[in-house]
């Protein structure tokens, strides 16, 4: 019973991280129809940039080291995302294949640059004392506090995105742009600029995931590919461009991974793809996707 509850909680904390990263991916795809293959690279670059801000501060025992690293990583990813849209992808609006190829190339360049600068040693953030250590969870016992915080951050991201999309003028523009991009332009809205904002926000969420992820487990080369793949699977399962769908997809995939690893470790890798295949066969637009 304890074990089952722990596995479920592990699945949910993993799902929280997946949701944070994949929601950015889904947001970008929803408005821009860009399959951002550099989304994992944004996760990775934010982790490393955040770490290089975090490390010297942490060595000086400054309490805000982790927060500064978080802010730096997220801010860097946001600017990086905006630049990618302005300098590269904005020129090929509507050419999905070219955009996918360009972002694949970009992620290779980014990964190699990071390898050259930081080497291959894994890095890990240490969470500040307030969210470090363990908390007693009823029915489970001691559980790492940070992983609970992770769930809190994911819920905050979800609520924040919902409020942004449903309660602000930018949100109205994004939703209208998903429906009919051309008509939104004819209404006098600078759609390319909205696109830059969305791209920047999506990249910032990847960056937030990068810092959170690198606090929960070590950050190493290859995380970019892993989180890109996870984002793809999560939004394919949940439905492209739907925040709720992304949350649902993340929970399904997170739980499947953890349960699979506990029950049949050898074949657990296959489980997520089985879910994806089943969803694609029965409901190609994703569980909550619009046809």
């Amino acid at each position, binding site marked *: 019973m304890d074990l089952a509850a722990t596995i479920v909680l592990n699945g949910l904390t993993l799902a929280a991280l997946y949701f944070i990263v994949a929601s950015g991916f889904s947001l970008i795809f929803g408005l821009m129809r860009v399959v951002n293959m550099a989304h994992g690279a944004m996760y990775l670059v934010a982790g490393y940039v955040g770490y290089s801000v975090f490390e010297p501060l942490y060595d000086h025992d400054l309490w805000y080291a982790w927060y500064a690293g978080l802010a730096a990583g997220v801010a860097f990813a946001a600017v990086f995302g905006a630049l990618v849209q302005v300098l590269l992808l904005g020129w090929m609006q509507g050419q999905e294949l070219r955009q996918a190829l360009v972002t694949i190339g970009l992620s290779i360049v980014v990964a190699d640059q990071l390898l050259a600068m930081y080497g291959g040693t894994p890095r890990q953030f240490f969470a500040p004392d307030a969210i470090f250590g363990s908390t007693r969870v009823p029915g489970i016992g001691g559980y790492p506090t940070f992983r609970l915080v992770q769930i809190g951050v994911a819920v905050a991201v979800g609520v924040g995105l919902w409020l942004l999309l449903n309660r602000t003028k930018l949100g109205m523009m994004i*939703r*209208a742009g998903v429906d009919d991009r051309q008509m939104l332009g004819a209404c006098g809205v600078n759609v390319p600029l909205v696109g830059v904002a969305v791209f920047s926000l999506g990249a910032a969420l990847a960056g937030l995931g990068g810092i959170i992820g690198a606090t929960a487990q070590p950050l190493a080369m290859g995380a970019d590919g892993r989180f890109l793949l996870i984002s793809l699977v999560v939004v394919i399962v949940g439905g492209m461009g739907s925040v709720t769908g992304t949350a649902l997809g993340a929970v399904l995939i997170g739980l499947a991974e953890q349960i699979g690893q506990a029950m049949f470790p050898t074949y657990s890798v296959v489980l997520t793809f089985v879910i994806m295949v089943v969803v694609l066969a029965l409901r190609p637009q994703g569980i909550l996707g619009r046809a």
Partner: protein
Amino acid sequence: MLEVRDLHVRFGQAHILQGVSLSVGERPVAIVGRNGMGKTTLCQAVMGLVATSEGGIAFGGRRLNGMPPYRIARRGVALVPQGRRTFPSLSVDEHLRLVAVPGASWNIERVYRTFPRLAERRRNGGAELSGGEQQMLAIARALLMNPKLVIMDEPSEGLAPVIVDQLIAVLRGLPADGMGVLLVEQNLRVATEVAEDVAIMVTGRIAAAMPAARLVGDQELQRRYLGVAAGGR
């Protein structure tokens, strides 16, 4: 206000607009013609939604060709597109708030006074409206931008006759707000009741332009250009 000169639009091999020249001033202008003659393409070209290959579009002395739609819109052109193209994800009220200009002559209160049906449906999504309600919303969305010129592409399409009468009344009032009107219509009654000048479009060209009264009175002309049987529409 709007000057279109020898405008050509091609989609690949298809030569859709073959040298359209047209000018719209203070008085409403209507364009009539059969299906597939290029009327919608002309509207889209002026709004910047399709690329033009030759010729010029000038608005208030400024060349519009190649400008992105949002800059054309900000110069004072609004489009009520064919098929309404309201946003399914936005409520009626959100459509209006998206484009409303604070303190302008057309504001949200005036829209709700003019189209009381929209006020009743303000919380409903764009996808939950009837065809007529969607059309009112598309018109309201354009008027709220307080444009200098509003282009309407078949606004009466699919509307019940009683709503068409209401539509005509709204359109006839627009020049009083200082709004220019370019109206594309299949419905000859709407075209001629709103506009005093009518242009007839045939295979990508303006084949003839005349006072509306003359077209109304000449069934031979109607038969030749519009394929309307005597006494029809």
